């Protein structure tokens, strides 16, 4: 067996399936759980399924290029791949969705590739095992449809146990008292299963082997646990429905109450109107008498105002009711559209106030007029957002500032604002992601999802353009670095774990890209910047350090990053700082 560098620092790992809506999702989940159980049964590892994109191991079905630089090739050949333990995509297992998979665990290959076997292999990578040259091992790279049956070949078992240790025997309530009993148990276990014995060894026969009974019992327990979990979820769902129904009834009752109140009000109103008419007719019959009764007039006025107030209140209540009704309707429509069944948060009984405030402006120039300026970074203690040779001089970019370094060193007055040179860049510019000078001697800036092309300091017509116009994925949020590689004079762009090459004639990303950044050996992922210096060499930057790249060996010239400030900003060495060479 072979181990691949990193392993998980914990033994309680979580996993999650990404394509939970695929037709055979439940079968896949069951198979993955079975495969993980095989690894768990022979080590200290435990696995728990979670519904989260933060799980240690993500199971994904994907076709062709799926964003990790390792594209699938359609039916046949490459079936799946997985990443060794680590942060981010570390531990994830990807399966080619174009394969004909057999999710029923049948050993007959005519029904498709046995998913369980492939999952078992890939999850071995997820746990830190590399390929083994032993043909019977699970970690043998070529697909073989071996019977899994809960056991691991010795090669894989030694491998996983070297990484995570052997499983400690968990005793029930009747733990044996003496070592004698333990010895006996050990002997019994040795008798029960012998991997080195042929299939006719009585204890290796599945029908004789008590281990298999135990496995079956464990499977039954597991099945029971899943059933209970499912039942619990169903009850939870039921409870939510009841809660929803109850809430709906309460609201209905309130609505009826309001309706009754409204009818009562209308009745009173009608009554008042009738009295008023009656009173008027009396007044018309005997006006002098009426004129002499100012108190009654006041009383009438008061009543009228009261009626108006009540009418207004009634109108407001009616409006609120309609508002609630509309919200309920919208919520109901939303839930039906999404098919979601989450409980609905009751809508607040407030009517939105009218406002004269305009919509947020889309002109970004107006956003940050009063925003305080960022302080200038310390030249000798900063990382670089971008670095490039422009017109034969070195430009280093950090935040909204740049340094300019010519043949006689750092220019006076720098760092200065980037926009003092390229005023067509956004007024609220906080940083540039990458910069390079192209073959037409235009200066190209990458800022977020857009790029700007300048003829000297004038923005070229039609820019900025979206990154997608270069053939980059529309989901790409930014570029880490862009540079022309001295080895072949081609233009490269990097972002996260991937990089692309641009065809200078078409101005588009070339076929076969993206590829994984690991080809630039020693540089790692998520770099800050890169550029080709006047010496023709390529330099990669991350945090406060940089690497020189050896094009012939395709790896960094020095494993340990050197301090950028010393070389590029010509900062003095601190008192107790020693050169790598001197060290």
């Amino acid at each position, binding site marked *: 067996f072979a181990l691949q560098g990193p392993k998980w620092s914990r033994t309680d790992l979580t996993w999650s399936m990404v394509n939970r809506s695929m037709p055979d999702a439940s079968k896949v989940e069951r198979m993955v759980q079975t495969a993980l159980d095989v690894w768990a049964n022979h080590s200290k590892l435990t696995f728990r399924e979670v519904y989260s994109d933060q799980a240690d191991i993500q199971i994904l079905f994907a076709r062709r290029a799926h964003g990790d630089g390792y594209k699938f090739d359609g039916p046949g050949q490459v079936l799946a*791949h997985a990443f060794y333990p680590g942060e981010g995509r570390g531990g994830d297992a990807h399966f080619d969705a174009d394969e004909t998979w057999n999710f029923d665990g049948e050993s007959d290959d005519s029904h498709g*590739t046995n998913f369980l076997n492939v999952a078992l292999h890939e999850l071995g990578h997820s746990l830190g095992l590399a*390929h083994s040259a032993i043909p019977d091992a699970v970690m043998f790279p*070529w697909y073989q449809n071996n019977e899994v049956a809960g056991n691991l070949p010795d090669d894989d078992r030694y491998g996983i146990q070297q990484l995570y240790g052997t499983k400690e025997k968990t005793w029930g309530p009747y733990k044996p008292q003496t070592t004698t009993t333990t010895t006996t148990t050990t002997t019994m276990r040795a008798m029960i299963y012998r991997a080195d014995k042929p299939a006719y060894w009585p204890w290796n026969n599945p029908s004789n082997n008590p281990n298999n009974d135990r496995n079956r019992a464990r499977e039954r327990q597991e099945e029971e646990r899943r059933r209970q979990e499912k039942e619990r979820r169903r009850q939870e769902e039921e409870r939510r429905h009841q809660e929803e129904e109850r809430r709906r009834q309460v609201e209905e009752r309130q609505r009826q109450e309001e309706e009754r109140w409204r009818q009562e009000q209308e009745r009173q109103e009608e009554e008042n109107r009738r009295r008023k008419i009656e009173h008027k007719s009396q007044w018309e019959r005997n006006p002098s008498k009426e004129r002499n009764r100012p108190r009654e007039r006041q009383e009438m006025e008061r009543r009228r105002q009261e009626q108006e107030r009540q009418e207004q209140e009634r109108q407001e209540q009616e409006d609120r009711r309609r508002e609630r009704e509309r919200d309920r309707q919208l919520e109901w429509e939303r839930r039906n559209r999404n098919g979601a069944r989450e409980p609905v948060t009751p809508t607040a009984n407030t009517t939105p106030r009218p406002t004269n405030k305009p919509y947020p402006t889309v002109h970004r120039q107006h956003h940050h007029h009063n925003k305080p300026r960022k302080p200038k970074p310390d030249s000798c203690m900063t990382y670089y957002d971008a670095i490039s040779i422009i017109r034969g001089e070195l430009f280093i970019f950090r935040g909204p500032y740049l340094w300019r370094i010519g043949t006689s060193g750092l220019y006076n007055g720098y760092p200065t604002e980037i926009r003092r040179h390229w005023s067509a860049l956004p007024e609220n510019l906080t940083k540039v992601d990458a910069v390079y000078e192209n073959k037409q001697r235009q200066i190209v800036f990458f800022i977020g999802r857009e790029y700007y092309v300048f003829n000297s300091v004038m923005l070229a017509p039609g820019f900025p353009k979206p990154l997608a116009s270069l053939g980059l994925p529309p989901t790409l949020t930014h570029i880490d670095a862009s540079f022309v590689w001295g080895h*072949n004079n081609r233009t490269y762009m990097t972002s996260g774990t991937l990089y692309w090459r641009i065809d200078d004639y078409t101005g588009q990303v070339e076929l076969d890209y993206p590829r994984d950044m690991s*080809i630039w050996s020693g540089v790692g992922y998520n770099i800050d910047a890169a550029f080709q210096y006047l010496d023709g060499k390529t330099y990669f930057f991350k945090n406060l350090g940089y690497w020189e790249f050896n094009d012939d060996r395709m790896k960094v010239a020095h494993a340990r990053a050197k301090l950028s400030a010393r070389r590029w900003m010509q900062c003095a060495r601190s008192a107790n700082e020693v050169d790598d060479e001197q*060290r």
Partner: protein
Amino acid sequence: SKKAKTAISEDIMYNYLMQFDYLPKSDLETGALRTEDQLKEAIRSLQSFGNITVTGEIDSATARLIQKPRCGVGDRRSADSFSPDNLYHEIGSNVRVRR
């Protein structure tokens, strides 16, 4: 043997050897040409790993081997393997520095 050799072109063989780490993956980018000996050595490694007769030639068994369905992860612990942390582990932990 000749028939198999014509069926599996050297291009396909090169790509396979690079894809699964028998030749440096960086050759994909640099377009570096390998000597005949380097190619033979890589084929020998593949044959040895695949548990078939080691000849250093693209024979019928090798042709069959590279057409078999398999895992996409490389077969060797190389610097350009899948793990993001691998580079740091390989480079960082084993470097001995002369005083």
